[in-house]
């Protein structure tokens, strides 16, 4: 079920109506848990068992960790959670990848091992809810929070449908306390949620799905196109991905808000970031901070000798790349972030920084260029085609033989300018909160009119969110 589908709107209206009609906290949570399982089961009911197994595992681990004082046993329980959760993720997401990589390496070394690929279906959202449950176990282990005694609450934390399949990756420490009090509709900013949902819908159904055919055209036939098209096609994918993923987060946050729960922000105008480091504090925030708190800092973070720090950064980002998908393209994508962050770190502390001041705009352009380049590996069908697409983008040489000359669209540049301007207006909060000044009937009228107008621009056949595949 996709947020932009009509059937999701119907589903949510039923969930919303019944939820607020129920009087007790427990019945409401049971209702939310049931509907969350229905939501998840709509894609493939078989994977409900995985969701339930992951919940049960972390429930038991959490309770055991709380009651145990022996450090070795506590560590053992933590490993149970890590092995169980990462084992499921590893099997469903990475088994074929690692097997294929092993076989090709063995063949390269001269060993004759026949390739074997198993037909494993990737459960939707497994990367997201695995990280959520892991954060719970680790936080209980670190005694940053008490274990959750209510299985219902923990199950709802894991399966809460607005953020189940594509984040934000909510921490138990933020969400579980919200489950301890009866939610009140009178404390919900319904207008804000409705506006955010419509904005998310617009970003996904109009902008992202609208741009998708051009991106598909470019990435599918890049050898036909010239250098100018590379500077349209590659940034367009960056726009498509942002509008797609941030739209999902917007709609998830709005839906959760309408049900009385706050989710963390996941995006904060990343394309206006003046540096790579700033970019990762604005893009997929919940993942970046998760990696920082549960991987990078435990490895040592920025402390220690230069080689140790480099190791920490590179390993973290290689794994971040791998988290996105079981393919070497994603590893390269992550691998491109590590050196950039290290370089930036050293630049900051170097004396050259004072001698050659870089204006924020230049920093922003350089950051965007690097991000766009990395995203080529994220989007391309293979590493070969990614390298082919990078050629015009880096060396200004048209790919193909003879070199391609086609233009992706001569007015697409104006589309990019227009979208940037729209984004800037939003960044500067020039139109923020205008709906709060409207009266109740005025708001309903404007919202209905806006909804009717937005529908004329949507792609009738809505495509799944890009991050569903992760």
């Amino acid at each position: 079920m996709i947020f932009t589908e009509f059937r999701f709107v119907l589903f949510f209206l039923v969930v919303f109506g019944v939820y607020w009609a129920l009087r007790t906290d427990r019945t409401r949570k049971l209702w939310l848990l049931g509907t969350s399982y229905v939501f998840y089961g709509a894609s493939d009911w078989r994977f409900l068992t995985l969701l339930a197994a992951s919940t049960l595992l972390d429930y038991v681990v959490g309770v055991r960790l709380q009651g145990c004082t022996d450090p070795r046993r506590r560590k053992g329980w933590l490993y149970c959670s890590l092995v169980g959760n990462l084992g499921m993720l590893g099997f469903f997401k990475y088994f074929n990848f690692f097997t294929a990589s092993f076989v090709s390496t063995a063949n390269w070394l001269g060993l004759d091992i026949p390739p074997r690929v198993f037909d494993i279906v990737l459960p939707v959202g497994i990367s997201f809810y695995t990280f959520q449950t892991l954060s719970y176990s680790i936080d209980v282990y670190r005694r940053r929070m008490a274990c959750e005694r209510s299985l219902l609450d923990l199950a709802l934390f894991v399966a809460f449908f607005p953020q189940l399949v594509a984040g934000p990756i909510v921490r138990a420490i933020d969400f579980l306390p919200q489950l301890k009090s009866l939610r009140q509709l009178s404390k919900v900013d319904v207008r804000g949620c409705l506006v955010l949902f419509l904005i998310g819908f617009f970003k996904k159904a109009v902008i992202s799905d609208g741009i998708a055919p051009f991106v598909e055209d470019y990435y599918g036939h890049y050898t036909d196109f010239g250098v100018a098209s590379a500077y349209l096609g590659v940034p367009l994918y960056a726009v498509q991905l942002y509008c797609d993923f941030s739209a999902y987060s917007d709609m998830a946050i709005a839906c959760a808000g309408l049900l009385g729960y706050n989710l963390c922000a996941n995006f904060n105008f990343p394309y206006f970031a003046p540096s790579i480091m700033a970019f990762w504090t604005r893009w997929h925030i919940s993942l970046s901070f998760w990696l920082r708190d549960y991987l990078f800092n435990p490895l040592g973070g920025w402390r220690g000798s230069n080689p140790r720090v480099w190791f920490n950064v590179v390993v973290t980002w290689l794994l971040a790349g791998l988290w996105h998908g079981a393919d070497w393209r994603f590893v390269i994508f992550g691998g491109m972030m590590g050196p950039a962050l290290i370089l930036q770190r050293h630049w900051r502390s170097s004396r050259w920084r004072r001698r050659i001041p870089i204006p924020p705009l230049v920093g922003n352009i350089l950051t965007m260029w690097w991000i766009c380049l990395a995203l080529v590996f994220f989007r391309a069908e293979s590493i070969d085609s990614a390298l082919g697409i990078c050629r015009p983008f880096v060396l200004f040489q048209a790919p193909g033989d003879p070199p391609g000359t086609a233009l992706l669209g001569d007015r697409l540049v104006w589309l990019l300018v227009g979208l940037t301007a729209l984004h800037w207006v939003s960044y500067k909060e020039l139109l923020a909160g205008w709906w709060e000044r409207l009266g109740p009937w005025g708001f309903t009228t404007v919202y209905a009119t806006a909804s009717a107008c937005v529908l004329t621009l949507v792609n009738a056949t809505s495509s799944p969110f890009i991050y569903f595949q992760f």
Partner: protein
Amino acid sequence: MTSPTASSEFDFVTENGPRRPLPALRTCLLHALWWLVVFFGVARALSSVLPLPADAWTTPKLQLFEQHKDEYDIVFLGSSQIYRHVDPAVLDPLLAAAGYPLRSFNFGVSGMDALETRYVLEQVIAMKPARLRWLVTDFQRMGILLTGDNHRTPRVTSWHDLGSTLLALRLVLESDMGPAWEWDLGLRHLLAFCYRLGNLGVLRQDLIPLVQGTAESRASTERSWFMGGPGGYGEAENGFVSLDEAYTTASGYERKLLRERNDKWKAVATALTERVRSDPRRPRPILSYSGEPRAVQELSPLEREVILDVTRLCRDAGYDLVFINAPDVRQREYLLDEAQRAGLLTVLLDLDDPLRYPELFDPALRFDDLHLRAKGAELYTRLLATLFIEHLAQQAQAEATRPAGAPAPGVEPGGR
């Protein structure tokens, strides 16, 4: 204690903040109602200035026909068995040679079933083409099956006006597919109707060419190999594109699949031809839509109603409705066969007869079970011209022998 990711930017729930006054349930319902009124009011206003959802198949033909609507005497309307078989460039000279200087247009579109045909027929009639006299159509199936994401495509959305949707819903309820299927299908038709009502994506179709500018139109395309050129109405702009011509635009993989398909149906056509040679009886009805043997079916009351309704629609607008049955190597029963048995059809030009027209079942001319290749289409058009000329002669004779002042023939045929 909270995590660093907890943000106040999207805190839509204020835990310790002031409670907002909650409107009464009645007020909430009134707001929901007002939202619906405004939404559909705006949608209605927009639909009066915006075009209908355009698809790559029907819309270009409708637009081309509208430009030249007063030039045609005959319109062939229906599925790919019209689209791929009736060549006006062959037909018109034959009619002219027989003393009927008429001009025809092929409004066949791949996969156009009866419900869509009925809708397009209404559009054609609403244009009031000055010279149009004959509407020729193949009503194969009712076309209530909407699978996958079909109900969201501009093509399906476009024909889901209130009348067609209600009709589709009635047909779904009348079918014996079981409650689950009926519910699913009914919902899909309703959704398609809602999408049309909400002008889903009608402006988007104009935006893509706008941002694309003069660059080669590739992104907006939803065409595939069988479109056979821009617009799908052929180089002669008479609506006909043979399958051979369309085949040239297919990709390597598509060609491979098509070759396999072609081989399979050539074998079936060969078997049919041999069977007809050895046993000179018409081998039908032998198979159902799915290819399984089945008993002879009767038209349902609703299907009967649809056929009568379409006949009445044409007659009221002053056009003659002629039905046409194209050759099918599987010799399956379709709607028209049932309607013919029920005596509902005024005129049926039946070319689906391997005894009378064995040449149309010649494996060398077949593309697949339902379609002929370019040479087969030419032959088909010639045979059709012969039948049509006979029909015109009979019509002229009937008019000549009709007493002055008597009403024109076309009394509601069949009836219950």
